């Protein structure tokens, strides 16, 4: 249920301390910075972005991929385990997970719209002049269906006391299949670009879906751990076991899987006979970008969290929080590495272009739009937690258990 009956937004604001206002001010500042980025791009054109003719996709696309796959990953990796596959231990994460999926999708959508040359005509053109042979068109359609399913799923949990089980399941199944397909078509946008072998062809979809799950698990874990510290209601439904055993181990395994596919991708690329492919991998790993692509993307973002989660002593609540935040930071960086890697090798030796390596650096306007994406995410989540009781458990006809009496068992089968 929403907070409307008991606690209103105003009262929750009043009862909050200075830190809460500081947080709101921080989000407000993010919107101000983001607003500047969006406006200046709209007025001046994409010339204020760091993209070039040779690197037409930069940090805005990678941020979109980051957010869209966070959304995808939460749904595939966490919420559907409970809502579709009936794994009860994930129930306390479902409502918050659905909301997080929705707002990450919204944040991603806002960032990509801001980077389009003609954002105003984007939706009408997709509807009136569709191209079903384009993966991008399918991705938009599938993410729209997915967004609709998420709204329906949230409404069913929040508004309907005893939703018919069949309806809940149908919606949950749509909210599982749509993001898998949407994530796969997002991969296909890159994978079908044959001129850019760095994206890995068919492998792009698999790679992005695996990484999506890891990032989704990391986000919901990080948010839930923070919420447990802030709210006793969350602490009551989310057991420490759920964090340290179930989510901690899940994060460890997902991170290891990402490490493996990332390693395979680079090993294959570096040893490829295709010169452009090998050069792209060399450039991304050992060129100027290597410092962050390898250092943060793989070291800080994958290796460290993997170790933190593998060692029982560091798999504490604090350790899990640290690991999930590191995975998120690493993933943000890796998305940029992925997007840029496909464009780093110049396609032709046209003397008006850079050759053989095309460079890119994000501009102030681009960074401001990225800030807007994060501010939107933070703002929507803050509003969501003020408006809704995110600790509510999903209930269905036969099983109308109240969450106050339900203590989930976290990962009893894990050890």
């Amino acid at each position, binding site marked *: 249920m929403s907070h409307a009956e008991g606690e209103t937004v105003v009262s929750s604001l009043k009862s909050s301390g200075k830190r809460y206002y500081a947080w709101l001010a921080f989000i407000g500042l993010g919107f101000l910075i983001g607003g500047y980025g969006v406006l200046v791009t709209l007025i001046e*054109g994409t010339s204020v972005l760091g993209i070039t003719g040779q690197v037409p996709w930069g940090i805005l696309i990678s941020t979109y991929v980051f957010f869209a796959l966070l959304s995808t990953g939460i749904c595939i990796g966490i919420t559907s385990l409970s809502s579709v596959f009936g794994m009860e231990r994930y129930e306390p994460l479902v409502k918050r997970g659905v909301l997080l999926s929705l707002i990450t999708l919204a944040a991603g959508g806002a960032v990509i719209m801001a980077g389009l040359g003609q954002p105003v005509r984007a939706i009408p053109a997709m509807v009136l002049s569709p191209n079903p042979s384009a993966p991008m068109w399918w991705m938009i359609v599938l993410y729209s269906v997915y967004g609709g399913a998420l709204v329906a799923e949230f409404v069913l949990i929040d508004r309907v006391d005893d939703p018919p089980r069949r309806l809940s399941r149908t919606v949950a199944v749509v909210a599982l299949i749509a993001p898998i397909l949407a994530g796969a078509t997002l991969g296909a946008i890159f994978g079908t*670009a044959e001129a850019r072998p760095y994206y890995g062809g068919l492998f792009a979809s698999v790679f992005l879906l695996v990484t999506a799950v890891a990032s989704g698990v990391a986000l919901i874990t990080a948010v839930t751990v923070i919420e447990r510290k802030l709210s006793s209601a969350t602490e009551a439904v989310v057991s420490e076991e759920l964090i340290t055993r179930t989510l901690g181990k899940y994060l460890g395994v997902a991170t290891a899987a990402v490490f493996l596919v990332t390693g395979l991708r680079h090993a294959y690329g570096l040893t490829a006979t295709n010169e452009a492919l090998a050069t792209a991998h060399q450039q991304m790993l050992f060129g100027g970008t290597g410092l962050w692509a390898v250092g943060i993307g793989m070291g800080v973002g994958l290796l460290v969290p993997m170790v933190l989660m593998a060692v029982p002593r560091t798999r504490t609540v604090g350790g899990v929080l640290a690991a999930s935040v590191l995975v998120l930071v690493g993933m943000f960086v890796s998305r940029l590495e992925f997007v840029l890697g496909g464009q780093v090798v110049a396609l032709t030796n046209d003397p008006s272009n850079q050759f053989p390596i095309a460079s890119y650096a994000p501009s102030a306007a681009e960074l401001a739009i990225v800030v807007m994406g994060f501010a939107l995410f933070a703002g929507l989540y803050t509003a969501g937690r003020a408006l809704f009781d995110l600790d509510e458990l999903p209930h269905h006809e036969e099983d109308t258990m109240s969450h106050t009496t339900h203590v989930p068992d976290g990962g009893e089968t894990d050890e």
Partner: protein
Amino acid sequence: MSSESESLDAELETTTLDGEGVDLSMVIDLQRCTGCGACNIGCAQENNLQEGMAYSSRIIETNGEFPNVSYEYTPTLCNQCDDAPCAEGCPTSALHKGKGGITMHDHETCIGCKSCMINCPYDEIHLNEEDPHPTWESEEATIESGTASARAVKDRAGVDDDVDAPAYYNPNREVSETEHPTRYKGIVEKCNFCVHRLERDELPRCVEECPCEARIFGDRNDPDSTVNEVLAKYNPDVLKADEGTEPSVNYVRDYNGGSYERGTGEPGLGD
């Protein structure tokens, strides 16, 4: 006009642009091309291209070390690929295969997503990052109180801003529905074999402009066309054939043609 370009002109007159099975193609004879760049300049003029934008360009390759060096100049333009990945991946069908097999671009449905730029293996799609001729809004005069600013010229000429004819209006491009007399920001653009000229039975500007008649243009599906004659006579090549895009721009008579072995300066095999 020489007899060869006259015959290309005559061929064009008998070719119906939207006739069934018409497949417009260009062959570039690399032995005739001197690398003068007249095609690029003509194209920029024809299409009102601003600095830094070139639908017609070139690839340059130098190999070896002095004194054993080779220098190759290959004129480039959109290949109007039969299997065009740019059109395949365009979410709004702004890029599509149009009449004569040309890869057409509709400015009004382009959303500026740039996925075509990712998909084209030849870097032949260009983004209008800002309004192409912003200088026409400039209030600054080169010599204060000496010369008029661009804005003043525009005003004096009575050009109404928000209607059809800003100062960089190009009526030539108005002939076709698919081209725009004015160009604007936020969309991509590319060569379309000067479809506005083809509509008037004129050859693409780069073909007309070439002083060496290195560009041969016509219908590939007309067995008697000069294009077919040249393609049959020589061993044609396309750029990045392994991409499988089936380009409609072919190259014949590679300038290096195996005359010298690369890097040795010695006559190569087959000479």
